[in-house]
């Protein structure tokens, strides 16, 4: 069943069948509903591991009273149909999946990533905005962070390293300017002295 997104009242099948825009019969909100075949598909029933019938049958590593149906393709442990996780066509157990996820080997399961390139850019740019003085200290930090971000895993969607390179260039420029200023001050002091 579908619900109106404004008042959350149920929508009759007439609303779903309507071409183009339709109106919620309760609150009068205009809705454009696109229905896909999955709406009519019944939900798949959950699997249950079958109990062992004889001594000849292998047992699941995690459920000793359940029949093993497949070995884990990562660790080789026997798994019942309850423990078997079908991941990209491979049969694996939940602990292997969790450890692979922890190592960052499965981008499909990642839910968050730190953007090191954005941190490097922020450290390179933000100190310039209020006053120039901190750049004497932040420029080397920005250079280090940008170099680190080059090797760190970036965004899942933005695959370019242009921000890292920009941050490196900006930090290098700040260091060069500071070197010139210090050089000028030293030269002036010596000349004056």
């Amino acid at each position, binding site marked *: 069943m579908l619900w109106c997104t404004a008042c959350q009242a149920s929508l009759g099948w007439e609303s779903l069948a309507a071409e183009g825009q339709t109106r919620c019969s309760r609150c009068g909100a205009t809705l454009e509903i696109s229905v896909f075949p999955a709406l009519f598909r019944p939900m798949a029933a959950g699997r249950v591991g079958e109990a062992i019938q004889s001594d000849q049958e292998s047992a699941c590593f995690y459920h000793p009273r359940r029949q093993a149906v497949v070995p884990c393709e990562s660790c080789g442990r026997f798994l019942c149909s309850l423990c078997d996780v079908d991941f990209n066509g491979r049969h694996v157990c939940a602990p292997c999946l969790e450890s692979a996820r922890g190592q960052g080997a499965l981008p499909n399961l990642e839910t968050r990533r730190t953007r090191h390139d954005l941190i490097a850019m922020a450290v390179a740019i933000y100190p310039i905005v209020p006053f120039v003085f901190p750049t004497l200290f932040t420029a080397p930090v920005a250079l280090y962070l940008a170099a680190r971000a080059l090797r760190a895993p970036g965004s899942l*969607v933005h695959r370019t390293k242009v921000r890292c390179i920009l941050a490196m260039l900006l930090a290098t420029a700040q260091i060069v300017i500071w070197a010139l200023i210090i050089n000028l001050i030293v030269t002036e002091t010596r000349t004056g002295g």
Partner: protein
Amino acid sequence: MAPRGFYRRLPGTGRTLMSSVTLWAADDHLLQVEVRGFTEIYRRFYFRDMQAIIIRPTGRVKAWILAFGLLTLATALVAALDSGLGWNIFWWSLAGVWLSVAVAHLALGPGCECALRTPLQTIGLPSLGRLRSARRVLEALRPMIELDQGALTREEMLARLRERAGAATPLEAAPDPASPPPIAPPIAVSGPREGLARPVRHDSGRAHEVLAYVLLLSAAVAMLPLLYFNVVLNASLSLVFVGRVVCIVVALARQNHSDLSIAMKRFAWTAFGWECVTMAVGFFGGMVLVLHLLSSGRLDPASTAPPSPLDIANFVKDNPAFKVISLVSSLASLTLGIWGLLAHRRLAPAREEPWRILPT
């Protein structure tokens, strides 16, 4: 088809003060990326699980355009009245900024709210805040979803819907006329508004009715200075405007997550918008008044004695701009009040006989 692991950017960006949300399409799923500070948060919606996409056009953008348009007019009015060269440039620049924001909103098109239905939940897609981008995304996703789920012709879909309606339980097929339609579980809103939305509650619309009456009263009060000007009387009647603000705040708070009709909610938001405009006009009008008092010599910045309120009131009373503003304010309040009462009248019978608003 794009190679595995490659994401294609889809139109639309949802922005809040602290985050931005975008949508990306892979070959088998839709990825929602929310950037919060220096972290990207991912949420995947597989094409095989998508049951429906619901787009609901909203008047949010129209309200913004109206607000910025009125702000432009108010600022331009101040700029036209102000003769100082430096201030003149400032006011015209400010009017230009407001106008460009209004034009940008106009160019991006009408607003909407988009939700995605999966077998387990309905999820809001905050990046699709414009009708145009939502439709473009839907057109881009449709072939991908059909590739995973197969395509249904319109006839097939109608047949299945009829089948479903026929197979429904007697209660679903013929709802009890005395009971309102069932309420859905709260919508899970992803992105900046993370978490579950609050459940919808019933509201009688009493706060909106009171607001409508207060608006009618303030329409009469706004006209009074044009007919009879008395400083003490008019100052005491300005309490009505304070009451109006309180009523608007209460109505907006009451209608949040309530089952009130769209018309009632629009009425409260329009009253709120009008109040903002009134305040902006009052602010700019006050500034113009000070400038005029300074230029006419009634207000002397060097003098330690404050100017007489009666003197200022007499100056304001004779100003044609003040008369125009009072008249417009009165008419707007009258219109809003009548609209509110009519919307409440229309709401009342539906509340008493809920079966009248059920689908036949």
